[in-house]
């Protein structure tokens, strides 16, 4: 991405380190905060995000769990109801399907169903996405599924800054929040500006301004969209890149404002297109900005297959910068 030039006070770190610093800050700031999840303690976290936190905060607050996703996610819901501020780590979104009942039937229904007697201030972190050559059951992108569900807030930090600070907003939210960390971002390095100490968890953000076409995306696909925007610039096409950041509640305003500027839009989503968040975004644009458009809406999504193991097949399955370039070019310069 177009990271700002490093200055003397800027801290350079990985996305992984930003996630860890966020957790450390949360644990230090509030004794009600504790972590639960598989291999987050002694192992140090499947993606090493929690490495060192056990030594720093102890077993009571960094709780290794058995492979019981439903039980420990439900325990997070119960603990949130009884005064704690749990942060539950599910190793990957694929395994969150084993805890779906606790998230969908308990966490998001209880506030409404109890007539507002209980809030569920629970944060669930999970890794998501493909690209690591680990096949279908480790590579899903189900953020859009979760964004379907009223009562959840769904965050997709893509930058170092969002990885570092979204958690603070999530913990302050009295409602269940899911944070999706894209697996391909953990090793990404970037600079953290010294003057930023918080980010909002409400709004999408324009990561690159442009006037010819809007590339709307989130998570791991943000950097593919930015790369595509660089390519398009060399052809004289000035693409705007919108990072959704929050998939629920969706920041429709920022999307519509961008489309009103560029009058053309490509939505890039690592989820499948059928019944997806990309479909939702497209429909909102159709409902509210139809007459602003100079071209049909386009999408670049994952192919509708399980994510394959072989590298050439996985690459063909996932959205790639070249496909984004082709889609945007066709809208701006129809052949």
């Amino acid at each position, binding site marked *: 991405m177009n990271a700002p030039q490093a200055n003397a006070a800027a801290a350079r770190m990985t996305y992984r380190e930003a996630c860890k610093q966020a957790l450390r800050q949360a644990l230090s700031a509030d004794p009600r905060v504790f972590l639960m999840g598989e291999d987050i303690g002694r192992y140090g976290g499947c993606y090493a995000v929690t490495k060192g936190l056990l030594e720093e905060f102890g077993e009571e607050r960094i709780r290794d769990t058995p492979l019981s996703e*439903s*039980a420990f996610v*439900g325990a997070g*819901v119960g*603990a949130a109801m*009884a005064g704690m501020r749990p942060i539950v780590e599910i190793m990957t979104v694929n395994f969150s399907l084993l805890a779906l009942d606790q998230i969908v039937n308990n966490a998001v229904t209880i506030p409404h*169903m109890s007539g507002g*007697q*209980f809030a569920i201030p629970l944060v669930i972190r999970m890794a998501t996405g493909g690209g690591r050559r680990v096949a279908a059951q480790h590579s899903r992108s189900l953020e859009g599924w979760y964004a379907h569900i009223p009562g959840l807030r769904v965050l997709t930090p893509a930058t170092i800054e969002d990885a570092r600070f979204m958690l603070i907003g999530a913990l302050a939210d009295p409602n269940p929040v899911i944070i999706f960390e894209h697996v391909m971002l953990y090793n990404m390095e970037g600079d953290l500006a010294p003057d930023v100490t918080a980010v909002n968890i409400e709004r999408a953000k324009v990561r690159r301004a442009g006037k010819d076409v809007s590339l709307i995306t989130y998570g791991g696909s943000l950097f593919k969209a930015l790369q595509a925007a660089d390519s398009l610039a060399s052809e004289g096409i000035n693409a705007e890149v919108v990072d959704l950041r929050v998939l629920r509640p969706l920041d429709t305003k920022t999307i519509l404002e961008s489309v009103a500027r560029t009058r053309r839009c490509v939505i890039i989503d690592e989820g499948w297109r059928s019944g997806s968040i990309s479909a939702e975004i497209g429909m909102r644009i159709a409902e509210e900005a139809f007459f602003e458009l100079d071209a049909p809406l386009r999408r670049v999504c994952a192919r509708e297959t399980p994510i394959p193991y072989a590298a050439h097949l996985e690459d063909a399955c996932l959205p790639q910068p070249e496909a984004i370039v082709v889609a945007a070019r066709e809208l701006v310069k129809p052949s």
Partner: protein
Amino acid sequence: MRQTRFLHLYDGEEAVSVGVMEALTQDDAVIATYREHGQALARGVDMKCLMAEMMGKLNGCCRGRGGSMHFFDRARRFYGGNAIVGGGLPLALGVALADKMQGRSAVTACFFGEGAVDEGEFHETLNLAKLWRLPILFVCENNLYSMGMAVERAEADVDFVHKASSYKVAGEKVDGMDVVAVESAAKNAVDRIRGESDPYFLECRTYRFRAHSMFDAQLYRTKEEVEAWRKKGPIERFQTWLEANRLIKPEELSGIEKATDAEIAEAVAFAEAGPLEPVSELERFVTMAEVPA
């Protein structure tokens, strides 16, 4: 306007809730099932609010949003009826863990039917409860049928105490039709849980006199079987026991019946007179503005 809706009656199982709740203090917590009218009443939740909730009224305990399967009462630490079989078990882990981490000596009583033992949540939860030594009283209301599925047709091993013991959770069987036996067992269990911060398991063998829900034709059991169990009814049995031991006078009995009739009449009147929540409030509490104090 009176609404009659989806309902799972508790008749026949009263001794289980009443006996267990007698063993709890107001600081203890309760996780209930979808058959929780009995559990809520025994916990001391106001009958008027329960009746209004069943009628879908604003003066119901959950403003008419939960209905018969989802009573909640924050003041009594009643963490809800749950309509997903086994869905409440993991919640018990969290409530008990929160109490333990915050230095409270509360016990969480977690009610579930024997059908929940078929679910993975039972096994995950018992394992974690023992592993983390959480103060949970697991109350298995074994009414012999999960809807229409007889227990011996669903379980390779119908010995639930044995199943609990495989997670090193101690437990015992108790006659769930005998409120005195249930109360006695629950009191011992709660003392033990509080003292040792360790879970305990009670299998309360009981029977549901009525259909599973109002849509059940009861093709899976005989009228004779139901009649035989009705003869062992917990209310009648307790009354007989009280009378035999000269613990109650006839006029006290008729006084209780009159007071109960009056309480029910008052609850019905309260519910019928209750307003409906305005539709404009439909989306309220989908997300909360703050965590209730």
